[in-house]
């Protein structure tokens, strides 16, 4: 596609429920990143995928967070048993092998 797309744009869920966030990167981009941005804060790195290599999961805050990238394209970030502190904007970016990153519009997650 022309740019990175993310869905849903907004998600409201109840504490304890699982959520899935989706990212469609720019076609042909081999690298995909997930970040989290809390209100008024900078971006926190979560996970990085590069081609078929094992992902860099070093930024995932707990084992409730996981992500996969199917077929080297679409990625899904899953948060299990959501907590109120998970409320944030989740941003996805893609790039050609660790060069310029292009960001999607984000998913605003609210955990009640």
């Amino acid at each position, binding site marked *: 596609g022309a740019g990175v797309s993310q869905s849903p744009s907004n998600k409201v869920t109840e504490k304890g429920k699982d959520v899935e966030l989706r990212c469609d990167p720019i076609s042909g981009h081999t690298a995909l990143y997930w970040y989290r941005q809390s209100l008024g804060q900078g*971006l926190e790195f979560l996970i990085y995928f590069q081609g078929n290599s094992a992902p*860099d999961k070093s930024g995932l805050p707990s084992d409730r967070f996981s992500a996969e990238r199917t077929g080297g394209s679409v990625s899904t970030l899953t948060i299990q048993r959501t907590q109120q502190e998970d409320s944030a904007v989740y941003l996805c970016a893609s790039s050609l092998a660790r060069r310029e990153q292009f960001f999607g519009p984000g998913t605003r997650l609210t955990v009640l």
Partner: protein
Amino acid sequence: GIQVEQSPPDLILQEGANSTLRCNFSDSVNNLQWFHQNPWGQLINLFYIPSGTKQNGRLSATTVATERYSLLYISSSQTTDSGVYFCAVERVDMRFGAGTRLTVKP
């Protein structure tokens, strides 16, 4: 991990003024980018600049990798330049600074 410090944290300008934003980082990096986050939250690429100088219209950036800093220059600022400017560096993973919040007043 690598530390990224941006200054100033906040900046208020009158339309037409020039400004310089700074990004210091604590280790050598493979990648450095400047982003603008507009009031609607969208992050927009400004520069991919691991070293050297680039210019794009009223904006320019310089990275001195050996001294571990980068500068973003905004000339003749406009109200649409308002937002948060982030510097991000990559060594092993991507790290963002806390940003500079710029407000340009008409």
